[in-house]
């Protein structure tokens, strides 16, 4: 597995070991890109900072919390309304953001008084919200404000409120990943074990590393409810602050995004003996396996199997409709940290696409290891990619579609590669059986967009086809398919609604099994 040297990066030899091509028959022992090292200044890397890793990725999905950043206004403003983590309390945490708005005089004389006053004002503005997370920024870290002391002081004066403090300044570590780590550890140190939750089922889990992008968590909660599993807390999407204080009473930690949240699972295991079960909820087979594993842990595999059978029967014909049309399409799977390995093998197996490249902005070598092992031979793997390398890779690989962030998606657009938002999704949720079909539908709509086809035509040079007034996706996608597939009565396109969550929220469940005295 030789290192891949980009033309555009020949002048920065440090980059040499950050990209590899997975050769035929090679395994990971021959080469693995370096990962999670300091960024090369000026390389126009896509990485963010440790503050955003803590506040924006993990902190803010907590729904019933005033999220206050202690620093100048930019950190707060910039990490506001750029994500799609929704909640069932009318998206309080998406709509509102709070800052101390530190100014020059505070930098000189200290900003602790300002902080205290801002905390009190914020609670006053939202009298129903009694919980707060405070996030340190570069500025407040450098001037050395003691945020913890102020939080303690306020909690003494206002006994009805509870405050969590996360000290993760932007400069802490090579990327946002440093912030994931810090907030995991801060939460378990400060908050876990401070509330005793009510245990109402013999099967109790924490659902960890799930951020409820476009409602993923709602989808998964449906499965857990159907299995009679009590979800004590979700870390952190749609999670409530107090439920997350009771994480220590779960029987099992079900871990989704290991990159951002394995730390707290490992600590919960060490401190409270709670086992960790890693799952992938993206994909039919992977999700089935995940529910089965959870079922096995509790001895309720039959319940998992019932869901798997029902959902598979409902959605498989729709998944396969897309698979027939996506087969062999080339994908650059360029997400943040964990989706390269969550998705690489599943999108190949279940959508039929070929992953020609994976990259990770803030992943560690372990993420790369998993990602490379799960993608196709010949795939190009890049750690901490930068603008020019991304363009060079697209030029070399000629992908049919790219899954990446919003802004890099705009870069791809200019070289005529359609993009799907890997972080926030196009029309999600993408978890669950239905969600996975929605993902396939989004890929299909991206690749077979008639406008995309028009973008490739140079009217000054090419022959302009004048025989058509329009094209449909089907006219493009079905032209080389066999009659058997195009006229199949089994396969069908996605039949769900634009909003697939509102029906879920109306569902009722049989309730939990009684908790036996010895099990409690």
């Amino acid at each position, binding site marked *: 597995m030789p290192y891949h040297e980009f033309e555009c990066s020949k002048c920065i030899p440090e980059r040499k070991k950050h990209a590899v091509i997975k050769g035929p028959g090679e395994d990971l022992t021959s080469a693995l890109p370096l990962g999670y090292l300091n960024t090369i200044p000026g390389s126009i890397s896509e990485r963010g900072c440790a503050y955003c890793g803590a506040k924006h990725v993990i902190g803010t999905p907590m729904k019933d919390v005033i999220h206050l950043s202690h620093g100048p206004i930019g950190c707060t403003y*910039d990490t506001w309304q750029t994500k799609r983590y929704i909640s069932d309390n009318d998206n309080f945490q998406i709509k509102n953001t709070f800052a101390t708005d530190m100014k020059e005089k505070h930098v000189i004389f200290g900003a602790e008084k300002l902080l205290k006053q801002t905390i009190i*004002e914020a609670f006053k503005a939202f009298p129903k919200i009694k919980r707060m997370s405070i996030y340190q920024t570069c500025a407040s870290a450098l001037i050395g404000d003691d945020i913890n002391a102020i939080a303690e002081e306020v909690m003494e004066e206002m006994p009805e409120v509870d405050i969590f403090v996360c000290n993760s300044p932007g400069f802490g570590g090579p990327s946002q990943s440093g912030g994931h780590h810090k907030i995991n550890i801060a939460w378990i140190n400060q908050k876990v074990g401070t509330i005793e939750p009510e245990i109402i089922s013999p099967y109790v889990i924490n659902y960890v590393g799930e951020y409820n992008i476009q409602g993923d968590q709602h989808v998964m909660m449906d499965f857990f409810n159907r299995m009679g599993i009590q979800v004590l807390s979700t870390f952190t999407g749609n999670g409530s602050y107090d439920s997350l204080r009771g994480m220590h009473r779960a029987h099992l930690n079900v871990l989704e995004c290991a990159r951002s949240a394995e730390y707290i699972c490992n600590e919960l295991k060490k401190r409270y003996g709670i086992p960790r079960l890693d799952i992938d909820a993206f994909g039919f087979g992977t999700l089935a396996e995940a529910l089965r594993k959870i079922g096995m842990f509790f001895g309720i595999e039959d319940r998992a199997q019932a869901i798997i059978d029902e959902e598979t029967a409902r959605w498989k014909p729709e998944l396969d409709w897309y698979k027939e049309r996506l087969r062999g399409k080339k994908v650059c799977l360029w997400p943040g940290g964990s989706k390269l390995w969550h998705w690489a093998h599943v999108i190949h197996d279940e959508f039929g696409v070929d992953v020609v490249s994976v990259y990770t902005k803030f992943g560690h070598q372990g993420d790369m290891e998993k990602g490379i092992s799960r993608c196709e031979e010949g795939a190009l793997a890049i750690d901490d990619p930068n603008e020019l390398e991304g363009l060079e890779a697209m030029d070399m690989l000629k992908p049919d579609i790219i899954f990446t962030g919003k802004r890099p998606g705009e870069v791809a657009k200019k070289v005529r590669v359609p993009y799907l938002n890997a972080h926030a999704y196009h029309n999600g949720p993408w978890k669950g059986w239905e969600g996975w079909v929605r993902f396939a539908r989004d890929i299909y709509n991206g690749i077979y967009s008639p406008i995309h086809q028009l973008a490739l035509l140079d009217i000054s040079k090419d022959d302009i086809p004048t025989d058509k007034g329009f094209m449909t996706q089907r006219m493009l996608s079905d032209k080389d398919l066999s009659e058997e597939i195009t006229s199949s009565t089994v396969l069908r396109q996605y039949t769900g609604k634009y909003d697939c969550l509102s029906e879920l929220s109306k569902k009722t469940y049989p309730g939990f099994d009684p908790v036996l005295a010895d099990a409690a």
Partner: protein
Amino acid sequence: MLCEVKEKTRTGIINPIFTCQPCGAQFVSIGVKNCVGIVHGGQGCVMFVRLLISQHFKESFEIASSSVHEDGAVFGACSRVEEAVDVLLMRYPHIKVIPIISTCSTEIIGDDIDGVVTKLNAGLLKEKYAGREVHLIPIHTPSFVGSMVSGYDIAVRDFVTYFAKKTEPDKKLNLITGWVNPGDVTALKHLLAEMQIDATVLFEIENFDSPLMPYGNFVSHGDTTIEDLSGTANAIGTIALNRYEGGKAALYLEKEFGVPAIVGPTPIGIRNTDTFLQNLKTLTGRPIPESLVRERGIAIDALTDITHMFLADKKVAIYGNPDLAIGIAEFCLDLEMRPVLLLLGDDNTNYQNDLRIKAFQENVDFPMEIITNADLWELENRIKNDGLELDLILGHSKGRFSAIDNNIPMVRVGFPTYDRAGLYRHPVVGYAGAMWLAEQMVNTIFTDMEYKKNKEWILNVW
């Protein structure tokens, strides 16, 4: 006085109107050709600003970071700037201009970016890049001072200060637009063309709306050149449309090179556009042509169709960049509307003395509040808890939920407007902008009337 100007009484911010200074400097940097800025600070200061700009324009822009990590924060991070300059120059052969934009962290640790520039000029650039034209411009934009608005103002001044060089006087006019959209630049250039005025537009950002071509890679970028900037010293005059976004540069050129400056007004609405044309005439001696009389007539005709029938007495709240918000408020008054709340979102103390604000105070005949150092909670709280009734909200997308949750129609205007498609293509300045803005307002009110079944039948005939 029915119009009160007051500062927000709370200390902290709930739902900010602006981001911080480095964003303004970054926005300026992408307007200059062959220029990629280096933001000296944590990576988020760049990553999120690039995202924000890309949310607004649906395009990607190139800005680099010095990627300050822990060691840099402790021991100083000037070496990161040196490395960043070298890496950028090696990999982007077309780059000629590199502004070094400071942030809160690097200002607090006291990194001497001016010193780094001196060192690089004497060392790296001389040795490794001899014969290559490279300009390094230190721009100090600590995030704990001002806002993105002042960051923009400072960066324009610093670019102009760095490049402006008196040689032979020419007949060109400097037009400093302030923080606008490509559609505004198009509209302004149209007015200049109609008046046959040769002007240097700072900044030439029409290509922020760039094409998706069947070949090549058309990255969005501004087109203001080094020659444009150096030539500003030789112009016959400068008009800075926005007092708080480019005013500093205009005054610098006047003081340093005797280039006469006119600062403001923002040409939003008919009246301010008239004034702008008059200013153009004054500085260049060019007459206002019949074509513009006609264009103005079309706009006036369109406004007459909607103003006293539909817009009169409508209560609006306006927030955003100060020149934009003030300009829109002035225009609303001409349209017989009532701008009852104006939110200016930073702690600039000069707003109090702004003549336009003083004019509101002297002449407005209904209760009007102007809040400085404001946040969006000043709006939300008034609606939710103080019974403020509004017919319309005008502002950027960050305030969208105040409109949505309170069932108040909203017209997106300013920066950023990411929750609506293509707004950057449309002007709010000039006669075209006046027409577009007023028609956006009235159509938005019409849609709201229909959704709420509030006299929607009135639109059958008008």
